[in-house]
């Protein structure tokens, strides 16, 4: 009979383990996300939400300005388009964790594998992120074709801004996922609530200057604010109205890097703490519901 050599070092999680977990979870997430409807309905669902969200802003703009002031309209459209990523990432991560715990009751089985839950969660949520990217492209496309938005992309600036922004949003989403793990089933709606609140302080649909002065520092602390500003510069070739628009491209990128560099380790540490608390409180296989 084989004997386990207890003196041998136990291998930790390797990159190969994490990668395997990640790409398996991507396939799983896509299978779950894509199997609920026929392609037509799926397309409607993918189109209607982001277009309606942008449509609200466009109508508000039209009512007040009568269509004058394309610069502000472009500001609105880009912000509304990119915010789909925030909804998609946050919603995707929280949905993954709650679905796997409460609905599919899979989470405990993933946790006890040698693989970490973290790459599994990231991979599982990527399907939602993918559909949100479609929404971004669509919203921008409608803006260009029907609303006179003029794109002037600077890829050298846009690509790093996008990557950093994506990392920042994922970090915030991971934090939300860990937090919602502590809560009841009704937490399904919380990512949208958080994303809605971030709407307020990220310069997504109005310049940060409009906020009361005591809130503005909070807005500037979020990496999403700098990501949106950098993305606007990368897409439109110009900055936002207000003080932030007066900063140089380099300064904006620097703040994006710094804010992301601060937020990322904090949120990862928070996630680790949330997981530890979940294990202590027996929340990993809790079912709630009311």
């Amino acid at each position, binding site marked *: 009979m084989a004997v386990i050599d207890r003196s041998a070092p136990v291998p930790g999680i390797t990159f190969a383990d994490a990668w395997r977990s990640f790409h398996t979870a991507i396939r799983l997430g896509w299978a779950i996300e894509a199997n609920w409807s026929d392609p037509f309905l799926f397309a409607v*669902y993918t189109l209607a939400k982001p277009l309606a969200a942008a449509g*609200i802003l466009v109508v508000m703009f039209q009512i*007040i300005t009568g269509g004058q002031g394309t610069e502000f309209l472009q500001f609105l459209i880009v912000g509304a388009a990119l915010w789909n990523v925030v909804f998609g990432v946050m919603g995707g991560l929280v949905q993954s964790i709650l679905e796997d715990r409460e609905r599919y009751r899979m989470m405990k089985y993933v946790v006890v594998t040698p693989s970490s839950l973290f790459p599994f969660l990231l991979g599982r949520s990527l399907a939602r992120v993918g559909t949100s990217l479609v929404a971004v492209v669509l919203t921008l496309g409608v803006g260009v074709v029907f609303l006179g938005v003029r794109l002037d992309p600077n890829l050298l600036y846009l690509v790093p801004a996008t990557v950093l922004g994506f990392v920042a949003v994922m970090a915030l989403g991971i934090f939300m996922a860990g937090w919602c793990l502590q809560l*009841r089933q009704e937490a399904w709606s*919380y990512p*949208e609530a958080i994303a809605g609140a971030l709407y307020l302080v990220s310069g997504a649909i*109005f310049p940060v200057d409009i906020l009361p002065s005591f809130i503005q520092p909070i807005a500037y602390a979020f990496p999403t604010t700098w990501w949106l500003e950098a993305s606007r510069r990368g897409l439109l070739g110009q900055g936002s109205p207000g003080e932030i628009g007066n900063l140089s491209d380099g300064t904006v990128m620097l703040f994006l890097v710094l804010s992301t560099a601060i937020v990322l380790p904090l949120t990862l540490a928070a996630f680790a703490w949330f997981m530890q608390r979940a294990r202590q409180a027996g929340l990993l296989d809790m079912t709630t519901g009311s």
Partner: protein
Amino acid sequence: MSGFRGATATNPREAAYWSTGRIVRTNLRAIVGRAYPRIIGLTREPSWVFFEILLPFLAVSAFVFVYRALGAAEEFVGFVVLGGAMTAFWLNVVWMMAAQFYWEKDQGNLELYFTAPMHLMSILAGMAIGGLVMTSSRALAVIVIGSLLYGVSYQIEQPLLLVAVFLLTMIPLYGLGMLFASLFLLWGREAFHLAQLLQEPIYFLGGVNFPIRHLGVVSGLVVATLPLAVGLDAMRQLVFPGAASQGVLPVGTEMAILAVMGVVFLIGARLALGWLETLARREGRLTLRWQ
């Protein structure tokens, strides 16, 4: 072992024949029973105060600041605050009624509801009432805080009429929720995604952030079909000075439309629930998990 015995009928056929009064009382008790976990849950998991009140208020504030950035007249801020408050009820309808059977099926509760002698509408009504505490708190918080913070002024000359419009709006709204819930029985996961679809597009068509008159021709269609839009339009006319010019139809006409909608949606919901239950039983969908 006397605890085993309850009813006093002498045979099952006698026990199965219930008077109308007993049927009504059972359904009323079922409403109370189903509302109970919702209400008690608020005290046992208080995080909803943050997520359901504070954060939505912040989201409403975002649209207030959009109007401020555009240099809009202050009345538009009032429109957004009132619209934001009403979205609380819409979300209650969509998530706590329409999509709720989705969760109940997973839990295994749906089949127990079907095998119990109450009507499903009682369960839905219980869910709605149970969620009303949270919903009303959210709506009230948005109105009170929003009005105080952003200096919204109201001119309510007919408060009773306003209450009547509000109540008339709730009936078709929740009737629509029951109708959607019956669609869930048929569509399963598709209904869940459709519930998600019923947010931004409804905010757009419902004029949550602007008077629907500005949608032009579409506003006529919307007023005929969407209780949220009609009710919001009527309430704005009653609370904001000069808002009558922004309304689609006079308040009286809109109240009549709401009344008709209420009847249509409630009857429609009852019929749809019955028809779709039969369909779901025929296709075996009632107890299929992960459908």
